[in-house]
Structures are given as structure tokens and as C-alpha cells.
């Protein structure tokens, strides 16, 4: 398992295996409503022209480069979650953290994830508190909700 940091991986270059072209850089992570799975990467453009790569189309998520199986894997999207992420309205990094008891616990500073599967392992708050993925209930535009 390769543990990656979302914060450290931002701006990492995305390269295609078949053409060796630079396709873009990691700009945002589209995370599922569950809050524990990366669905795709936003790598270029904003709003209507935003470009994404699905996690399943990654060949590897390395320390220096993100490698995509084919340049053709890059696509646009009209999915609301994707467009909200590209606009910055939905971003796990910097998200407010709320407990199921209605207490605000802080703000997400970084997220650790498995570079092989895209599974979130833990959220690290600005306070330094570590919240394991098992405690995460959901991620929305308002908050990352975690068990009290």
C-alpha cells in the first residue's frame, strides 16, 4: 500500500502511458458522498471546460507523477458532484468537519489515501486531530460528517 497525501499531491503532473503527453495537473479530488473513496481527479480547466480522469483509468499514482492508461481517458463531465468539485464548491481539503452530535470539530488540512485504490484512510484536521476513515459518514458541500 502506498500512502499518499492529498495536500502534497496537488499540482502533481498527470501523464498518459500511450502518448507520454502531459495531460494536466491534479487540481481537485472528486470524492464520493461516502467521503472515503476518490472517484476521479480534476486535472484541467474549470466550470464547463473542466477535464477529469476516473480513478479506474489510472495506471499508477506515484510520488512524482500520476500515470493514466490512455490520453483518451480524459473527459469532461456534467455530473453535479464533478462540476461542484471543479468550481471549488465541494472540496474535502479545507472542508468543515461536523460530528453527528452537531459539534464543529475543525477544518480538514490533509487527507491520507491509498495510492493503489483511491480509498481514503484518514482526514487530518488543522488542529492535528486524525479522523480515521471508519468514522467518516459523508462528504457534502457543507461538511465532512464524522461520528461523534
Amino acid at each position: 500500500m502506498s500512502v499518499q497525501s492529498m495536500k502534497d499531491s496537488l499540482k502533481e503532473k498527470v501523464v498518459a502511458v500511450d502518448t507520454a503527453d502531459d495531460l494536466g495537473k491534479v487540481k481537485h479530488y472528486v470524492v464520493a458522498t461516502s467521503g472515503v473513496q476518490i472517484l476521479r481527479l480534476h486535472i484541467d480547466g474549470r466550470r464547463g471546460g473542466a477535464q477529469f480522469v476516473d480513478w479506474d483509468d489510472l495506471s499508477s499514482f506515484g510520488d512524482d507523477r500520476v500515470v493514466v492508461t490512455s490520453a483518451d481517458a480524459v473527459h469532461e463531465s456534467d455530473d453535479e458532484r464533478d462540476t461542484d468539485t471543479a468550481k471549488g464548491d465541494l472540496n474535502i481539503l479545507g472542508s468543515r468537519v461536523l460530528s453527528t452530535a452537531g459539534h464543529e470539530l475543525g477544518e480538514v488540512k490533509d487527507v491520507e489515501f491509498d495510492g493503489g485504490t483511491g480509498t481514503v484512510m484518514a482526514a487530518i484536521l488543522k488542529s492535528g486531530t486524525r479522523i480515521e476513515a471508519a468514522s467518516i459518514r459523508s462528504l457534502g458541500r457543507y461538511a465532512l460528517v464524522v461520528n461523534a
Partner: protein
Amino acid sequence: MERIQRGMDFADSAYRRGVSRRGGSHSTQASWWQYRRGQRYNETAGWFVMSNQLHLVRASAAKGLPVVTIDTGEDAAEIKDVVFDSERHHLIGFTLNKRGWLAGSLKATLLADHIIGLGPDAVMVLSEASLTADSQAPEALADTGSAYHVVGNDVIAESGKVLGTVVDVIVETGEQPRAVGYEVKDDGGSMFVPVTAQMGLSGKNLVVPAEAEQFTRDDLAGFGAAVESFRYLLPNNDDSSSGGDA
């Protein structure tokens, strides 16, 4: 049934004017922050801790809190008003506003039974399905204007002594929040009176039975412990008869 809007307005405006619970002035600066379980809470906003187990809040402080869905992390609504059954002395639920600038009332309500957590920063519900459409809401939530008003009532002890006037309802937070007391104000400051089914209410006067009067406190922290003791000493006062909301 009654919305406690008048009480909420009173409490909010009193704090804005800088009037403390004891009639003195207070600062809205950092000195009004309190600590609870290692976290800070703003007393000016009306949040307090009573004991290790019991977390109490003025009902007025819930106004404006976002209603957040646990399954999606979205803010589905915000608290507009608190709906309180003053005949049975219990919290029924909340009316709601839409979120966002210039947003109006939401045609849905939130029953207290559907709340997973009522905290200082948000009201947590399982999903948007936890909000009840107006057409399906209990009559108490749909029509709140006809019954007795508890806020503004004179509070009278069985001995005949006037204790003050009800200015707010005190709610126990957590899962399925419920009303546990009234904040009563007189010239000397505030006191907190536990709710019981034995309280008489006329719409003008609230009569406090002797067994409840001994658990009256002049500070909210002490009141939390008193409520717990009060329940312990009145074992036959189950939720429905003690003013709870089960």
C-alpha cells in the same frame, strides 16, 4: 401549542443590549467563552454545559442553526423557530427556513424525534427524508397559534411568591432534544425552573409545584445537575409526565 418566538426575541435582544442573566452588563468578547470537554463554547450564543452528562441550551440559541444531513453532508435547511407544547411542557420540533441569502420559509418542518444530534453548531438529521412536509406534519407544527403561551407568563410558587417571568425554554441537547426547564427573569436576574407535568398554566401564570421549586437554580450549570437530581427523586415522573418529549 406555541412558538416561542417572543421569548427568543427577548433573549436575543437582551444579550445584544449587553444585559446579563443577573441584570448586569456582560462583554461579548472572549471572556464569555466557556470550556466544555476541551472545546470552547460561546455563552453569548446561549450554549452552556450543566454537568458531565447533561448538555442544556436556551431554545432561542437554536434559531439559525443549519440542519445538516448525515448521509450527504449537505445543509438542507436552517432552524427558523422552535415549536413548544406549553400545555404538556415539551418540545415538538422546529419550523425551517431555506438556506442561503434571501431564502424564505421551507415548506417542511423537523420533529424533535427525527433529530440525531442537536449541538452548538448544527442540528443533525439522517437524511432529507427526516424533514416532514407541511402537509404531513402534526397539527402542532402546522398550526401553532392557538394555545397557551408560556413565554411571558408570570411564574408563581405554590407559596404565592412571584418568582419572575418566563423568558426562554431550556432544552437538553443530544439525541431527541427535549425541554427540561424554563428561564425565569425578575429584577434580580435569572433563575431556572425544571418543567413538570404538575405545573399549572393559564396563559398568564405558571404555577411551580413545591417539589419542583426546590430544584430551582440561579445558574444554568447548577440547573443541569438539579434536573438530574429532580428526575432521580421523582421516579414516577416518566418522560411524558415530567415534561419530557418521548
